[in-house]
């Protein structure tokens, strides 16, 4: 299985980390919970759930660190029965990223921490500056949106806002 990335510059460093640290799952995400790269998951929606939880753990640990220590906790480790989880933050030119990884007895916390440092350095070097691109969608996306939501919810085509359900503010 190969690591998969939403942005190409993430893919090689993440794959190297997975191979070297011998982890079972790895997620690289924005602190807001948006996935940048993943290894070990088979469904996109499962990736999103893991990202949401990982981002939440990281964010709450950071806030707890500020309360207790005056500084955010940047790394966190959980020992489960069969698997262990390591969560840590890496600063890049594209902003802070969070790594969430799970591993079993094939690896160890020390190994994961060592290769996380390498991943962090590789990401720092590989990160391109942010690029502002043009509009992604054409102006007629509403028809596709209506069709998609209607299909999703097993309905006939939904009315446009203003036709039903919504109203103009009275103020």
């Amino acid at each position, binding site marked *: 299985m190969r690591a998969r990335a939403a942005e190409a510059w993430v893919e090689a460093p993440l794959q190297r980390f997975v191979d070297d640290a011998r982890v079972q799952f790895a997620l690289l995400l924005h602190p807001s919970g948006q996935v940048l790269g993943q290894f070990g998951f088979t469904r996109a929606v499962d990736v999103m759930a893991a990202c949401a939880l990982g981002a939440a753990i990281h964010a709450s640990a950071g806030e707890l660190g500020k309360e207790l220590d005056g500084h955010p906790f940047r790394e966190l480790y959980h020992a489960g029965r069969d698997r262990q989880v390591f969560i840590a933050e890496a600063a890049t030119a594209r902003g802070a990223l969070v790594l969430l990884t799970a591993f079993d007895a094939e690896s160890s916390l020390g190994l994961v921490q060592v290769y996380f440092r390498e991943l962090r350095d590789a990401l720092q070097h590989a990160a391109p500056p942010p690029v502002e691109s043009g509009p992604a969608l054409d102006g007629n996306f509403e028809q596709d949106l209506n069709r998609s939501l209607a299909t999703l919810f*097993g309905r006939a085509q939904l009315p446009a806002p203003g036709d039903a359900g919504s109203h103009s503010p009275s103020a």
Partner: protein
Amino acid sequence: MPLVNYATREITCKIVYYGPGRSGKTTNLHYIYGQVPNDRKGTMVSLATQTDRTLFFDFLPLDLGSISGFNTRFQLYTVPGQVYYQSTRKLVLQGADGVVFVADSQARQLDENIESMQDLHANLAEHGMDVRAMPLVLQYNKQDLPRDLIHNTATLDDALNFRGVPAFAAGALHGTGVFETLRGISELVLRRLSTSGSPATPSTAHAGSR
């Protein structure tokens, strides 16, 4: 801004349901979850107390399919409504691409609605987000309760909707207005992608799996 992958033509948007405690945010997500086929949704994650009050957030990932050639996914979140979960709300709001403000239409809850709206604005400002630019819709929930217990939509508009954003009457427990609300915020969020750019690298690979 939503995460856009131009190479694989994928869009991921984060939408947060905000509002006072017991206004019906989680009920919205439960209803959506119950309607969407399994192959278009992920597991609904609820971090709740033993009495089913939202402790951290609820989370529901949705796959909308292709929109203008982009495979589009939404991440729906709720925040805990109770006043003392202020710091948690702020964390969940981070990186939001759109907000649904779920107001409780009951007359006795008007002050809580206003306080929660002020809290939303304060938290957006703390994240450095432009409150006026953030896609926002209002949902006036519990409009199915007896008339003498609730405010009508005009009164709620006067109290809450000073931006003049789309507002939807709803009874989320039975699904009334839930889809219309989701459609409303979806359109606002995606419209931003049809009129402005999004931070992304031009050369990208695939992150998710299907």
